[in-house]
């Protein structure tokens, strides 16, 4: 079972709606990530938070707004999305500056978003 919890598991929203995706981890990780995954494609990096500060934004449109209220929580606020934004949104966490198993991200099961 994953130690990264994402809610909701499924979300359907209209293009004028405002919604949020939530992610929580209690492993003491200080890096948290949002990835987007379309069907049969690899996960694509969107945002990285390090010590609760946004460290990487992969040129994501402003209709996606991340927030890291504390070291355990990561949100993704959604507003005025397009149908092509429908995808599985994956949250992950990891240790920072850990050179053994430096590539180890712990993923949640994702929130499947459908934009109508």
């Amino acid at each position, binding site marked *: 079972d*994953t130690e*990264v919890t994402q809610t909701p598991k499924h979300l359907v929203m209209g293009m004028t709606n405002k919604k949020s995706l939530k992610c929580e981890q209690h492993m003491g990780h200080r890096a948290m*990530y949002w*990835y987007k995954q379309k*069907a*049969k494609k*690899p*996960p*694509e*990096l969107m945002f*990285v938070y390090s010590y609760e500060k946004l460290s*990487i934004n*992969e040129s994501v449109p402003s209709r996606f707004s991340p927030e890291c209220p504390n070291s355990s929580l990561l949100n993704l606020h959604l507003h005025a999305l397009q149908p092509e934004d429908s995808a599985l949104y*994956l949250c*992950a966490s990891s240790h920072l500056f850990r050179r053994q*198993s*430096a*590539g*180890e*991200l*712990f*993923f*949640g*099961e*994702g929130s499947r978003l459908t934009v109508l």
Partner: protein
Amino acid sequence: GESVGLHLPTLSVQEGDNSIINCAYSNSASDYFIWYKQESGKGPQFIIDIRSNMDKRQGQRVTVLLNKTVKHLSLQIAATQPGDSAVYFCAEKNRDDKIIFGKGTRLHILP
């Protein structure tokens, strides 16, 4: 091989045989190369990684090989089991600490 559009490369292996999943990478500056497994309806799960200054690393039933000359990474799974059925992604960790996923390969286990 490369996947285009909606098709994932698929590898079919008899249960009990060894599986070899291959990946080509392009960024020579990456400092770690990683393999992830994604089962249906789940997030990716870390399997094993290898530092760029190594050419082989072994885990439990898995071995990763790195050939920097031809920019090739492979994952070998010994004695493949039904639970190994999943999509396998190679990934790179670059100097900016970004973990970027490559195209996946679906591993199908034949009974």
